[in-house]
């Protein structure tokens, strides 16, 4: 069966544990994140072009890819730093709005977080990755009224006021 004709049955593959590292630039105030599989999360400050990046936080997290069990098509999700459950804190937010477009009461919106938190490059998670994530998380839901909607984090109105719940392990790497 060709990839194009296949109604994909995705399975999680290449599950890798690591750290979601958040950095901020004190010059432009932008924020970025990246996934590190180093045994110890990198916490260095460094200069990159006009940016002066400093470590803000890191949390244990995991990344994964998807592979179709029918046609073996693969979807690499290296751009997805983490997933975040929308807590519907702001009706003006695009992530919130994505949930209101679904008629079901049991619609849950998760934002796929990219590395460019401030979206200074204007790029976010590719549409094909978002599509695959939606297919994957909905394919095994038995409740016909329940739906998972995955959207790119570029729809988020404000990083600073967002009350979304990030799927990462907070506090495990804190130093006391």
């Amino acid at each position, binding site marked *: 069966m060709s990839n194009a004709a296949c109604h994909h049955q995705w399975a*999680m593959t290449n599950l890798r544990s690591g750290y979601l590292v958040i950095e901020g630039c004190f010059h432009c105030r932008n924020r970025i994140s990246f996934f590190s599989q180093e045994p110890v999360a990198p916490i260095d400050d460094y200069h990159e072009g006009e940016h002066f990046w400093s470590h803000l936080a890191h949390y*244990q997290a*995991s990344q994964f890819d998807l592979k179709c069990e029918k046609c073996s098509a693969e979807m690499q999700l290296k751009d997805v730093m983490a997933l975040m*459950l929308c807590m519907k804190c702001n009706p003006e937010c695009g992530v919130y709005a994505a949930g209101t477009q679904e008629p079901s009461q*049991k619609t*849950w919106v998760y934002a796929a977080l990219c590395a460019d938190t401030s979206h200074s490059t204007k790029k976010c998670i590719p549409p094909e990755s978002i599509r695959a994530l939606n297919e994957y*998380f909905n394919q095994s839901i*038995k409740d016909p009224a*329940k739906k998972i909607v995955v959207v790119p984090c570029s729809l988020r109105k404000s990083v600073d006021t967002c009350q979304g719940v990030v*799927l990462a392990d907070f506090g495990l790497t804190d130093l006391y």
Partner: protein
Amino acid sequence: MKVSELVEKTGLKTFNEGADKEIKGVYISDMVSDIIGINEGHLLITLQTHKNLIAAANLVDVAAVVISRNKTPAEDVVALANKAGIKLLGYDGDTWGLAKKLCELKIG
């Protein structure tokens, strides 16, 4: 075995109503980053009581969540579980003790 039957046989505490789902397996983990990889219909056993536990459990459509070591989830965690229809259960003993009970009942 359904969640209600498990509660009857093990005397687990219930923190909310939640849906009575069929248990297809058992998964033990205390890390949210690990939970997102489990299969639908699993009974999740954990020490975690943070809200992001529910966010992850909802994403992978668990059968129910059992919090061991006599820990109690906060009200906002229970509220989120209620919205998600996830049954929250509690076990007084440690995770290993519960795992042994589940093996005896041939669950998982």
